[in-house]
C-alpha cells in the first residue's frame, strides 16, 4: 500500500500535449517527461503579432526564446538581408543564457507567433537545483552553437569544411 502510494507520488510524468510540444524544441529533446515538466514550470509563454519586435540589437539579453509556433526573422535593423528565418522547434537569443551579452541582431515576428521564454536566472537556478537537466540543455546548446560555427566557417571558406 505504502509502496504504491510512493510510486504514485514519484511516478514518471506522462507526456501531455503541452510537454510533447516542448519535446519538439531541439534544446529540450534529450529531456524525459518528468524533466520536461520541471522545465515547463519555468517557461513563460508569450504571443507576438506579425511584425512585432521580440528584441532589439544592442539590448542586454536576459532570456532565450523558443519557437512553439509561427516564424521569427533575425536581422540587423536597416539592412534588408536576413541573418536567419526560424520556425517551430528552433530557439534564438541563446547567448543570453551564458552571459548578459548584448543582442547581436534584432528578432522580429514574421507572422503571429507563440514563443516560450526561458529566463537566464531560471536557467542558473536550474544548474543549482537540477544540475542534470541543466547539463542536458547546455549540451544541446553547445551542439547547436557548434553546428552554427561549422555552417559559418563553411560559408566563409568551403575548403575549411573539407579539412574537418
Amino acid at each position, binding site marked *: 500500500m505504502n509502496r504504491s502510494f510512493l510510486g504514485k507520488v514519484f*511516478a514518471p510524468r506522462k507526456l501531455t500535449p503541452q510537454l510533447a510540444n516542448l519535446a519538439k524544441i531541439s534544446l529540450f529533446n534529450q529531456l524525459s517527461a518528468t524533466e520536461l515538466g520541471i522545465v515547463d514550470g519555468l517557461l513563460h509563454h508569450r504571443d507576438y503579432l506579425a511584425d512585432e519586435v521580440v528584441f532589439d540589437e544592442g539590448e542586454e539579453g536576459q532570456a532565450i526564446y523558443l519557437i512553439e509556433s509561427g516564424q521569427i526573422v533575425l536581422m540587423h535593423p536597416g539592412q534588408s538581408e536576413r541573418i536567419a528565418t526560424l520556425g517551430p522547434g528552433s530557439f534564438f537569443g541563446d547567448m543570453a543564457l551564458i552571459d548578459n551579452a548584448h543582442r547581436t541582431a534584432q528578432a522580429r515576428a514574421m507572422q503571429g507567433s507563440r514563443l516560450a521564454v526561458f529566463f537566464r536566472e531560471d536557467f542558473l537556478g536550474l544548474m543549482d537545483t537540477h544540475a542534470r537537466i541543466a547539463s542536458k540543455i547546455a549540451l544541446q546548446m553547445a551542439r547547436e552553437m557548434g553546428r552554427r560555427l561549422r555552417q559559418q566557417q563553411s560559408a566563409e571558406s568551403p575548403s575549411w569544411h573539407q579539412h574537418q
Partner: protein
Amino acid sequence: MGQRQAGPLVWVGIVVTTCLLLAALQKLLWLTVPFLLALILYYMLQPAMQALIYRGMRRETAAGATMAGFIVLVLLAGVLILPEFGARLLDWQATLLRYLQGGVDLLDRSLRSLEASWRVFANAQLADTAAARLAQFTNSLTSYLEPLVVGAATWAPALLLTPFLAYFFLRDGRNFLSFLARAVPNAFFERTLDLMAQVDRTARAYFQGLLLLTVLDTITLGLGLWWLGFQGAWLLGLICAILAWLPYIGSVLGGLLVVLVAATDFPQVPQMAWWAVGLFVMARMLDDFVYMPLTIGKSLSMHPLLTVVMIFVGGAVAGVAGLMLVLPVLGVVMVIGQTLGYLLTDARLMARHRHARNLGRQAAEADLF
C-alpha cells in the same frame, strides 16, 4: 541592470514611497508580521521542496509534504520540550525574581554610592525616591501587564497565518509571478522578469543577512561576556542577538538582561555591571555602524550611510514597526523604482510598446472596414 544609475528624482521617489509604505504597513502590523515570518519560513523550506520536486513530485504535493513535515517537526519539538518546560516553570520564576532583585539591589547600591559622593543627590534622597517609584511600579504591574497580555491574545491568531501563508508561497509563488508577468506588455517583459528576479534576490539576501548578523552579534557578545567571566556567556550572547532583531527596543532589553545577570551573579563586584554595560554599548555600536551595513546593507546593495539614515527615518515614520521593516521595504522599493525609472525613460522600449499596440489595433480592426 547593474551599471545603470538612478537619477535624483527616482531616489526621491524611492525614499518617499518607502516612508508611505512604512506608514501604511504600521496600520496593518497584525498582517505584516505574519507575512514577514512566512517569507522567512518560505526561504527556509524552499530547498527541501525543490529536492522533492527534483525527485519527481509535483509542486503542489511537494509544497504540502514540506509544510506537513515542518509542522510535524514543530509539534514533535513541542511535545518533547513542553513537559520539561512545565517542570522548570517554577524554577524559572524563582530565577527570574532572583535576577530582578539583583537588578534592584544594583540600582540601590549605585544610587547610595552617588548620594555618598554628591550632596545634591543626598539632599534629594535619590535612592529612597527610586525605591519608592520601583515599589509603586511593582504594585501597578498588572495595569502594565494587562494590555500586553490582551495584545498577545489579539496577535496569536494572526501569527497562525504564518504557516498558512508560507504554504501558499511555496505552492503558488511561481504561478503568481507568472500571472503577474502575463499582464506585462511584450516590450517590457524581459526587464520585468529581471525586476522580479532582483526582488527575489533582495528578499533572500536580506533574510540571509539577518541570520549572518545574528551570528556576528552572538560571537561578539559571547566572546566579551566569556572574557568578563560570565556563566552561559554564549547563550546570553545568542539571546541578545535574537532580541536585536527588534531594533533599539531589542537592544535595550538585551542590555537590561546583561546588567541583571551581572548584578546578580557578581554581587561582590559591582563594577562588573558597568563593564557589561560598556561591552554591550560597544557591541551595539559595532552592530549599528559596522555589522548591519556590512551584512543587511551589503546584501541589499545599499550605501552604508543610506542604510543608517533610513533606519532612523523608518523609526521616525513608523516607530518600532518602521525600524523592523525599513530595510526590506527599502530594498524592494529601490529595485522597483530603479527599474520603473529605466523603463519609463527608455524611448526605444516605449516606441516598441506603441508599435505593438498599433499592430494589435490594426489586427482587431482588419475586417471591420
